[in-house]
């Protein structure tokens, strides 16, 4: 099966709607037009079974195609396989079956070290609980993204400051995260995820710990980043969040459906 073939072809599991044609989330000022180069994410018939009695099928024959510049929301109730999908997409977990191409690179056959390097270089993570180190300043937290296999140390602080500027947090560079509001913390975490220019921003319930005002602020930031051509994938159960995405897929009982 050629890599570029649309994933509509196999359609193995009933009910799983494969990744559709991009474009629904088209926005001005994209870095690369869709269809140019390999898709950022290409899942083909991905399954993930957790050994138990009986075995738990967290993902069943999932097919998904995310083009460069897409803004995709994955919605679903808890226990539907959202986290497993995120872990698989973030190269934190290995699918039991199927194939996952990130930027055209087949990842399922890669070793642990290669997956770690790929993860560090091409994926930026945004977590629900921010995961900022409490004893380090905002700037140091952002700089942490370049510690493992990033470019040379020279100019790291400047690059981190540029990212903080982008999310509007440059004025808090010397603050400890504990003195920031939830929305500010999440913006710092986004700045950290953006450092190193990842191909994909993977957000796991990014507004789960935020009030509506801060949620709005973070979603505006996502819109702006999407406008600059960044590929975003947001996992959420909030309609207000998923409504802002250009494209919505629903996951339920390990099955993925386009909305």
């Amino acid at each position, binding site marked *: 099966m050629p890599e570029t073939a649309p994933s509509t072809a196999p359609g193995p599991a009933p009910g799983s709607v494969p990744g559709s044609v991009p474009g629904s989330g088209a926005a001005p000022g994209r870095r690369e037009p869709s269809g140019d180069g390999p898709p950022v994410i290409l899942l083909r018939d991905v399954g993930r079974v957790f050994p138990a009695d009986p075995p738990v099928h967290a993902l069943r024959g999932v097919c998904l195609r995310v083009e460069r510049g897409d803004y995709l929301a994955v919605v679903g109730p808890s226990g539907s396989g959202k986290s497993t999908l995120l872990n698989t997409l973030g190269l934190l*977990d290995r699918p039991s079956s199927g194939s996952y191409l990130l930027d055209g690179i087949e990842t399922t056959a890669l070793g642990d070290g290669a997956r770690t390097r790929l993860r560090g270089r091409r994926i930026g993570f945004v977590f629900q609980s921010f*995961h900022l180190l409490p004893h380090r300043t905002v700037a140091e937290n952002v700089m942490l993204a370049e510690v*493992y*296999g990033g470019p*040379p140390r020279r100019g790291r602080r400047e690059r981190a400051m540029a990212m903080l500027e982008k999310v509007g947090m440059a004025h808090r560079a010397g603050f400890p995260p504990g003195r920031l509001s939830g929305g500010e913390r999440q913006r710092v975490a986004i700045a950290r995820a953006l450092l190193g220019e990842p191909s994909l921003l993977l957000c796991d319930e990014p507004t789960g710990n935020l009030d509506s005002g801060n949620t709005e602020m973070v979603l505006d930031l996502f819109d702006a980043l999407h406008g600059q051509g960044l590929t975003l994938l947001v996992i959420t159960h909030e309609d207000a969040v998923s409504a802002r995405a250009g494209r919505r897929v629903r996951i339920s009982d390990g099955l993925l459906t386009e909305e």
Partner: protein
Amino acid sequence: MDIRDLWSEALAGVLARPVRSALTTLGTVLGITTLVVTLGVAATAGNQIVGRFDELTATAITVDVPGRLGPAVGWDSHAGLLRLRGVVSAAAVAQTDASSNLRVTSNTLVDPTRVTGQTLAVVAATPELPGAVLGRMTRGRFFDAGHVRRGDRVAVLGEQAAEMLGVARMESAPAVFVEGRAYTVIGVLGGLRREQALSTAVIVPPTAGAQLGLKHVSRVLVNTTLGAAELIARQAPLALSPGHATELQVIAPPTPKRARDAVQDDVDGLFLILGLVSLVVGAVGIANVTLVTVMERVAEIGLRRALGAARRHVAAQFLLESTLIGLAGGVVGSGLGVVTVVAVSAVRDWTPVLDVRLALAAPLAGAAVGLLAGLHPSLRAARMEPVDALR
């Protein structure tokens, strides 16, 4: 990963909880301090005892000539000793059992109302005696080669003997009578630092002593320079009397080496074990706290893995953190140890003796303890699955 990044991440990890890190070092501090103090005090005390020997005993040699040998050692043979390198002074002395209890008076008048006579020892000695017994002439002078050659009947009194006999002034050229023979007193010898028994003796030249039965040398006193005693003790009999070298009895100070070893063996054993035990306890403490820290920082480990940290990066960071804690404990411990050794020395009026290598190796030992203690926790951190760590 840049080595400087590893360094700064580990340092930040240690400094994130300064109080906990400081408390964690305590075990190592105790262990290293105990080790440094044990070794330092042992070395100091060992050298101190040797130092006390040095002052007097370590340089004093006595060669006894058994009476049955007769004239085995001539009156001038001690001059041969002075040619040996390391000999500072030497003198020959003659004393027999008979000469040890002679009646000595300061005049010939018989006064029935008073005790005028004393029973004193009479010894014959060569003119070098004052130097050989490290004494000084408190009054008058000692006899010289001229007195000996001429056979003058002169005598030098020990300090206490002069007091007992009531001899105070030399100007009147007082005399003492030994077994009825008169001897002119020309001086009083005092301040003896060896052969203190001579303080109550009447000392006469060999030629004069012959009349009292003091014909043959019975003892040779030798003083050496520091450290030469052992060598001179071996050479002296041969130099004094080649024919009877093996029959002379040499009384030499114990060798300094043996003294030091004995002291160190006593002190070291127990405290070294104590120090090592505290070090093991310290290592267990570091291992425990590092393990707790790893468990607390699961989310951080997950984040680092998500940011592209390989397992070895996570392991290296925690290993370096525990090594740094051990190193800090070692530095503080060796500092405290050195201060303690100096303080103990100051109190006991000792000169502190400390091996520089010990002071340098102690922090390294602390770091090694930290490294070993961190092995298990850091491997545990590295084995963590990022998915579980981020949950």
